[in-house]
């Protein structure tokens, strides 16, 4: 069965410093993986997705993620955090043909 584990429930960074949000996955076959962001009182927005093409995936707002099969990881990174990046981030694996399986979420705090 497919699953994802987000290794940090909270991450704090200073504005202008790099962001790293960690996600490990478990899948019996080549997975489709996604990162979503949820700003307070707003819906979820797709940041990026991996679907077995390039292992380095670029998303919106300067975020990117690298699929590493040997480490079963799909960590989300951004070179320089902005105050507007403060939000909840969810790593998601596509289970079966259509079912999304969500991680527990990582709350990113950006300090001025």
């Amino acid at each position, binding site marked *: 069965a497919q699953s994802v584990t987000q290794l940090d429930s909270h991450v704090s960074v200073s504005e202008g410093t790099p962001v790293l949000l960690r996600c490990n996955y478990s899948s019996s076959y080549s997975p*489709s993986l*996604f990162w*979503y962001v949820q700003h307070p*009182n*707003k*819906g*979820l*927005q*797709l940041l990026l*997705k991996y*679907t077995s093409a390039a292992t380095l995936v670029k998303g919106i707002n300067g975020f990117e993620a690298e699929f590493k099969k040997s480490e079963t990881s799909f960590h989300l990174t951004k070179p320089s955090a902005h105050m507007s990046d403060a939000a909840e981030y*969810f790593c998601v694996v*596509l289970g079966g*043909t*259509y*079912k*999304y399986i*969500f*991680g*527990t*979420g990582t709350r990113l705090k950006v300090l001025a």
Partner: protein
Amino acid sequence: SAVISQKPSRDICQRGTSLTIQCQVDSQVTMMFWYRQQPGQSLTLIATANQGSEATYESGFVIDKFPISRPNLTFSTLTVSNMSPEDSSIYLCSAQRGTGIGVYEQYFGPGTRLTVT
């Protein structure tokens, strides 16, 4: 992509009553889903809303408590029945679209924040 709207955006309800949440997609989609997000937690899939047939419920969710309708390819409703304070959550609708062979993306509505007193 798909733009999804939900009504109401929030509500405060008394225990024992029911609330119906509406979800509208701006274009036809094959699959629609309903999720629950309890305070401070991740999303849990309630059910898949099937057009023209009964919804498919996940373990722990039943039709009597969460009846779902999907009369066409752009609209669905979720009813939270006989509510208790434990039902206080955000309820999100999503729609799925295929973007390639075996590849799917889900788009989410803004959610309905329900408080049961």
